[in-house]
Structures are given as C-alpha cells and as structure tokens.
C-alpha cells in the first residue's frame, strides 16, 4: 500500500512536466430528442497525461462511450472546450492522431487479416511494401504472426479483436481510444487479453483511454479510473491507482487491489442514487 501511495505521489509530481494528451473543461453534451433534451454529459473536467492509462467506468447510460466519441470527434459537444493532442478533436482526427477500437472488431470480411490491418495505411496512401511490413510488425506485436492471409471468419472472437488493435496501432497514433473492446468476449479470453494489453501498453508507451463496465478490468489496467454516473452523465470520482507495471492477474487477490476495487464500487453505488 505504501508502495502504491508512493507511486501516486510520483505520478502527481510528474504531472506538471507531462503533456496533456486530452484536456477537457466544462464540457456538456445534450441530445435533442422528441421526448425533450437528454443530458448525456454535464460538467466534464478531465486531463489525460501522456502515457496514462485512463479508464471510464460506470453503468450503461452514464455517457462513457459518448465521452470517448467526443474525444474521437464522432460526437460534437454542446458546450465547453476540449483539446486532443493540443488541437481540437476535429484537427486531431484529420491528423489521424488517435486509433479507435470499437466494441466489435469491425473487420471487413472481404479483406484478409493483413489487408484489414493495412486499411488505414491504404487510406493514407502509404506504399505497399511499407504497409505490409507494418502489418507484419503489428500483427506480431498482438501475437497474430502467421495469420496474415486468413480471413476474419477463420479467427476466434479474441483473435479478431487483437487484429483490430493491430489495425488501430499501425498508423502509430499518440492515443488509443478503446470502447469496451473485450465486452463481448468470455471471461477467460478477457483476462488473457487484459494481460496482453497491459504488456502492449508498456511496450508502446501509448496513452490509452479505455471504456469498460468491469471493475476488475478497470482496476487491473488503469493508472487512473474515472467513475461516472448517469442522468445526467457526469464524473463522480477520479481514483489514481499505481500498481507496478509488471503486474500479473495475481494482483487481483491482493488487499491493495481489493481496496481500490472497493472504492470504485462505492463510487458506482453512490452515483446510482435510489432510482433503481
């Protein structure tokens, strides 16, 4: 525990020297629907530092996916300011400075795994030889070497999601945005991919913003956990957790892990109110 706190302190100390990859101030997003306005996000203030692994956790309807989509310029905020990589989300998208990983792999069935991974490189207009070289490199990184010529349907769900991670990584973006990427997978595969993702994050030193509704997943992966609550969608707690970078799944049995998980659970419960 003392070790963990020390880590939090050192993270805090470093904060000033590190760049904000995502910087959100007073952000609001209201959807106008036939039944009146829906307050998807209110008063969001959030800074994500370079190299952070930040998780949004909360019940469905709390706006965690919407917030991720705002960062990705897939939704437009109604109010407030947001900077991604020092520029507006739109400019960040134009500059292709993030990679987005969806809830489903969204691999195109008519392309081989290799050509799915090189899809964003084709959009950029990179030369073929370099495209293939990158595909090989990133498929190896996600442990899919040898599957280049397979079609998506020949791979399991977990392998498909890994291929989609390779596709997001291959443009070498500053930022990885992951929207419940393992939500559709069974727990055993999910545990395995969590370990692999952690390893990948250490190797690539990317900044990751991760959406989940699983407490153990959030606590295991993150440096910071953003606890969110619905109606209106808002941030109710920010929890730093600094487990050693070379942690394994065994850490989930330790009291320190349980303590952070407990705090997240308490936050979620408090935010839920008494409406259900």
């Amino acid at each position, binding site marked *: 525990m003392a070790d963990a706190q020390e880590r939090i302190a050192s993270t805090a100390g470093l904060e000033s020297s590190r760049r904000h990859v995502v910087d959100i101030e007073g952000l609001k997003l209201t959807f106008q629907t036939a039944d009146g306005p829906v307050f998807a996000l209110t008063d969001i203030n959030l800074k994500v530092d370079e190299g952070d692994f930040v998780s949004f956790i909360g019940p469905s309807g709390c706006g965690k996916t919407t917030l991720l989509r705002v960062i990705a310029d897939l939704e437009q905020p109604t109010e407030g300011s947001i900077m991604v990589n020092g520029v507006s989300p739109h400019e960040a*998208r134009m500059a292709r400075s993030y990679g987005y990983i969806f809830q489903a792999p969204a691999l195109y069935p008519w392309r081989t795994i290799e050509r799915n991974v090189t*899809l964003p490189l084709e*959009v950029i207009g990179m030369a073929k030889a370099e495209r293939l070289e990158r595909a090989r490199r990133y498929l190896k990184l996600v442990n899919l070497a040898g599957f280049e010529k*397979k079609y998506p349907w020949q791979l399991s769900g977990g392998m498909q999601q890994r291929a989609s991670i390779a596709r997001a990584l291959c443009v070498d973006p500053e930022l990885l945005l992951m929207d419940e990427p393992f939500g559709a997978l069974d727990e055993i595969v999910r545990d395995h991919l969590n370990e692999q993702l952690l390893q990948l994050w250490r190797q690539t030193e990317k900044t990751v913003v991760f959406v989940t509704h699983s407490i153990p997943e959030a606590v295991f992966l993150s440096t910071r956990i953003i606890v969110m609550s619905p109606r209106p969608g808002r941030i109710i707690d920010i929890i730093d957790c600094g487990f050693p970078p070379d942690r394994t799944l065994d850490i989930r049995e330790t009291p320190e892990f349980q303590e952070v998980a407990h705090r997240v659970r308490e936050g979620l419960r408090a935010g839920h109110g008494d409406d259900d």
Partner: protein
Amino acid sequence: MAMTTETAVLETGKRTLLATAMAGQAGPVSLLLLALVVIWYAGAVWMNAPWAIDRFEKQKIDWSAGDLLRATMVQKRPILPAPHQVLVEMNKTILQKKITSKRSLIYHSWVTLSSTLLGFAIGGILGILLAVGIVHNRTLEKSLMPWVISSQTIPILAIAPMVIVVLGAIGLRGLVPKAIISTYLCFFPVTIGMVKGLRSPGVLEMDLMRTFNASPWQTFWMLRWPASLPFLFTSLKVAIAISLVGAIVGELPTGAQAGLGARLLAGSYYGQTIQIWSALMTAAVLAALLVVLIGVIERVVLKRMGMKR
C-alpha cells in the same frame, strides 16, 4: 489447426456443386421433374380430347380409349402440345437447321439475346448509378425514389409499343428500342438491391472510416462497394431474367421479323401452338442459362474476395 480447417473448407466448397447435383437431391429432383411431365401429358390429353372426339364422330369412326390417347398426342395444332411434340419441334428448329436460317431458333434466340444483353448492360449500369446517387444524396433520394418505383407500376405491355413507335419515328429500329425496354425493366431490381447493399455497412464500419479520416471516395471504394457486391449479384440474377422478358415484349408490337417474340407472335397468328411452346421453352432455357451464368460469376468473385465459405 487453422490450416486444416481451411483446407477442409476449400474441399467442401469444391464438392458442393457436384455433390448437390449427384447425391442426395438427385432422386427428389428427378421425381419432381417426372411428376411435372406426367401432369403435362395428362393436361394435353384432357385439353386435346374434345377436338379429337369431335373428329372421330364427324368421320363416324368407332374409337377406343387407346385411339383417343394416340389422337391427342399427334395433332398439328393442339390446344396444349404434348412435351415430346415440343421437343421434336425444338430439335428440328435448333439442332437440324443451319443457324443462319430464318427458321432456326438459334438465330431467333441470338436476335433476342443480343438486345437482352445490351439492355442488361445499360440497365445494370444505370441501376448502379441511380443507387449511388440515392445513397449519397438526400435530395436525390427524395426526388428519384418515387419515380423509380412508379416507373415499375406501369405495365410494360402498355409502354413497349409507344417506345417502339416513338423511337421508330426518329429512325431507331431493331436492336436499340428493344434494349431500351429491357433497360426499363431491369434497372429497377439493381437500384433497389444496390441501395440496400451500399447501405449495408453498419455504424461501426462507417465510424471506422471516419476515424481514419477517409474521403467519401475512399469510403465508397473500400467499404460501401465491396459490401454491396452480394446484393448486386442477387439483383443481377433478377435483372437478366426480366431483361429477356423485356426484349421479347419489345419484339411483339412491330410484328417483328426476328427474335423469340416474333416466333411467339407468328405462332399465335397461325395457331401454331407447337411453335409457340417451343419458343417459350427456348426462352425459359435461355433465361435459366443466363441466371446460372451470373451465379457462376458470383461464386467466383465472392470466393476470390473470401466471402463465400
């Protein structure tokens, strides 16, 4: 492991065509065919018997059931020709005639086929272009879609003579007016199918292209177009069959000199039912061959894209 699955899949793919034709289904399929032939013969006997009985009675001949049966099979202008009469006529006009002869069904089939294919090509391209416009532009969708649908509510038999007459007045005769009637019929399923196909990519697939900052052109060629191909082939199968119908209908109003439609018309002028039926059967065989051809192209294309398992 994955390797073996793949080879297994490939092998099943190869076997499917032959297997479905040869094994399991061959029995039921030929039984059904036999049943149809039997029903046809029964129908021929039933339809042609009154005339035969009439003849027997006028000539005051005693006749047995066997005589009647025979008499219904050999009439020159039966109400419903027996299958073998149609086959004999088809053999005579397809295999025994030189294909340059005006009486060869191959010659007439070619006349019809050429305008079918021309109309199909124009209609296919037109159908695709309309669908692309409709999918990408809301104004086009609002303004084109009602016309596309209402165009198909007008009976083609009503519009075909006008097209032929109007185009004939400006000097267009023969191939092109018929092809235009085919086009009129066959663009429709292509448009409807392609609108659905081009819209088939889901929200995730489309969002993915947005995160790549892909241009509309790139989104079209890398996502919408390949996703729409299975829909396109389904539409083309319908389109080529009705394109043939369009070409035949287009041959009727001019009292056309050549083509399967002309044979149908000539047959009905002179009460040559056997000639009508053999032209009909030839048209049916031709349509089936065209649909099978599209099916083969579909299999090859989708297999190369990895979409047929």
